[in-house]
């Protein structure tokens, strides 16, 4: 097993899939870089460094730099995918979904349904998301709550290098449209990555820590925070059943319900603001389907109902943290039905 950073896993996985499947193309802003410049195209591979070298290897007909036109990027990927290609579209920041949501929501997600099951649109929309860089309100958002709410899309949120490989390979080979959410702050995270062909089926959560006292659900950057909290809690003898959901659509309902049936206590950690969020989604699943097992109110650790602020102090107060997670767990454990 090689040890790699997530950003390199992404590049390498795309590379392998491009080599494997001639019909795979990729589009985005500056994914090549240098087109039309004095320096010339140079495959710098985007500002995240997730496509370096691909243009040189696969050429400009398959690795396509675009103008700043996100709707046209998604539409172009979608039109190519409808007509026999597979396509990866990179949206530089997930926050830019605002300028291309129609193509994602009303086009890509609905083609197959509207067309009576007679089309396929194998497209992966890669969207770097999330806070942690003090990138301010328009470059720091979590958007999984929006895309998870959209029927017709699959939504993937890897949190480790190994999962990134397995889930991205799966996403590229999947015949349905997939939103692939890469947490910007995790790009530099390093870890072991299985060699060779490696896929992880969607809808299967990863058990991060095992325990019988509390179920904790998390995705993306929240997984690491929850893991840190779980370690602290373990020192106090509290066993946390921490699940990394990996995909929010499809959702591994079974793993979640099984765990809550065992622990009776649920804590959800989410990077998005609280209203109509994945946190509320998971909470309502359990309040409906595992109600009888619940020994305490469902706790959620999320940012407040506000945009992501810029200043360091504000952003860290905004985000969930291991401390806030541990405190919520403590509340859960001390709860006694009144």
């Amino acid at each position, binding site marked *: 097993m090689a040890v790699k950073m997530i950003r390199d896993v992404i590049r390498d996985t795309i590379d392998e899939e491009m080599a494997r499947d001639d019909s795979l193309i990729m589009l985005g802003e500056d994914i090549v870089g240098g087109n039309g410049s004095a320096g010339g195209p140079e495959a710098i591979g985007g500002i995240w460094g997730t496509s370096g070298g691909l243009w040189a290897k696969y050429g400009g007909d398959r690795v396509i730099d675009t*103008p700043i*036109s996100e709707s*046209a990027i*998604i539409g172009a990927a979608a039109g190519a995918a409808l007509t026999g290609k597979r396509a990866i579209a990179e949206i530089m920041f997930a926050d830019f979904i605002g300028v291309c949501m129609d*193509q994602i929501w009303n086009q890509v997600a609905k083609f197959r349904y509207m067309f009576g099951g*007679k089309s396929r649109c194998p497209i992966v929309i890669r969207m770097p998301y999330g806070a942690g860089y003090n990138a301010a309100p328009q470059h720091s958002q979590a958007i999984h709550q929006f895309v998870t709410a959209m029927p017709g899309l699959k939504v993937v949120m890897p949190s480790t290098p190994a999962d990134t490989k397995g889930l991205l390979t799966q996403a590229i080979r999947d015949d349905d449209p997939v939103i692939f959410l890469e947490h910007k702050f995790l790009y530099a995270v390093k870890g072991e990555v299985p060699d060779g062909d490696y896929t992880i089926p969607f809808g299967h959560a990863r058990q991060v820590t095992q325990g019988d006292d509390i179920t904790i659900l998390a995705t993306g950057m929240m997984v690491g925070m929850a893991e840190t909290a779980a370690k602290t809690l373990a020192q106090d003898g509290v066993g946390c059943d921490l699940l990394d959901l990996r995909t929010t659509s*499809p959702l591994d309902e079974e793993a979640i319900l099984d765990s809550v049936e065992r622990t009776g206590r649920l804590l959800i950690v989410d990077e998005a603001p609280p209203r109509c969020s994945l946190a509320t989604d998971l909470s309502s699943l359990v309040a409906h389907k595992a109600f009888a097992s619940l020994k305490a109110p469902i706790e959620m650790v999320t940012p407040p109902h506000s945009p992501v602020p810029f200043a360091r102090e504000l952003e860290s107060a905004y985000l969930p943290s291991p401390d806030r997670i541990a405190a919520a767990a403590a509340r859960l454990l001390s709860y006694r039905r009144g």
Partner: protein
Amino acid sequence: MQLSRDALTRAYRQMKTIRLFEDRLHDEIALGEIAGFTHLYAGQEACAVGVCEHLGPDDYIISTHRGHGHCIAKGCDVEAMMKEIYGSSDGLCKGKGGSMHIADVGVGMLGANGIVGAGAPIAVGAGITAKSNGTVSICFSGDGACNQGTTFEAMNMAVVLKLPVIFVFENNHYSEHTGEAYAVGAESMTTRAAAFGMKAVKANGIDFFDVYQTIGELIEWCKAGNGPASIELDCERFFGHFEGDPQRYRGEGELERIRAERDCLTTFRTKVTEAKLLEGADLDQIDEEVTALIDRAVAQAKTAPRPTPADVTQDVYISY
């Protein structure tokens, strides 16, 4: 381009099929038989057919909310279309999409589309495939849609990527109730498209032959690797924006005049019979056949199987 007798017959049949399809829908909608919003294409037949007569199944088109004509011209099954509009589970889209979403990717028809301007980016993507296949991608669009940001982005992107995409702007002079003269701030949508860096021409959308000839040249030009092109077709829509529209924005006598003077079917008939390319009797014969086809389609659609509640959750995903 000299058209054979067969080609002329086929073109007329296609146009007439669209006309009678729409005329009949107009009547059926008035009876309350058909649900949803329906936008009829009658009047614009020479546009769809003039373009699509050049295309094979591996060429792509994408359409608009006013899609029936494009679908028929590109070869969608007329009976399956009618069933779709009636919401039958035997419809082309199993009753899921209805009038505004008829599609048949198998014949290169990438869908009517309810979002104005949404087709243009998708046509660019089909253009990527077309470039690799030696085919062409056609984006049908309107005089209203040409002002939507997505259309502009798509035009620029097609130029940048030098794709064989043709933006066909059917200028029927209205977007809903608003006149093109108001909504298109530019001198014309064609001068504006030209300034995007593509070949941009106009043709007479009432005249099948002009459309056919002009678009034929553009298709060749695009397939030769010259990048995208645009064409504006001056045409008329004979019904309201959607069924139910009182059309108060029309000038006095406008509807009567365009129906009398600017009917592409009449124009075609006059031209081919005067030039003795086809006989009036040939055309009458087609008229009869098409009438029978539409009668059959409607009769079938009315008794076709209906979807059941279990169908609601089918076809959301291929696998989930």
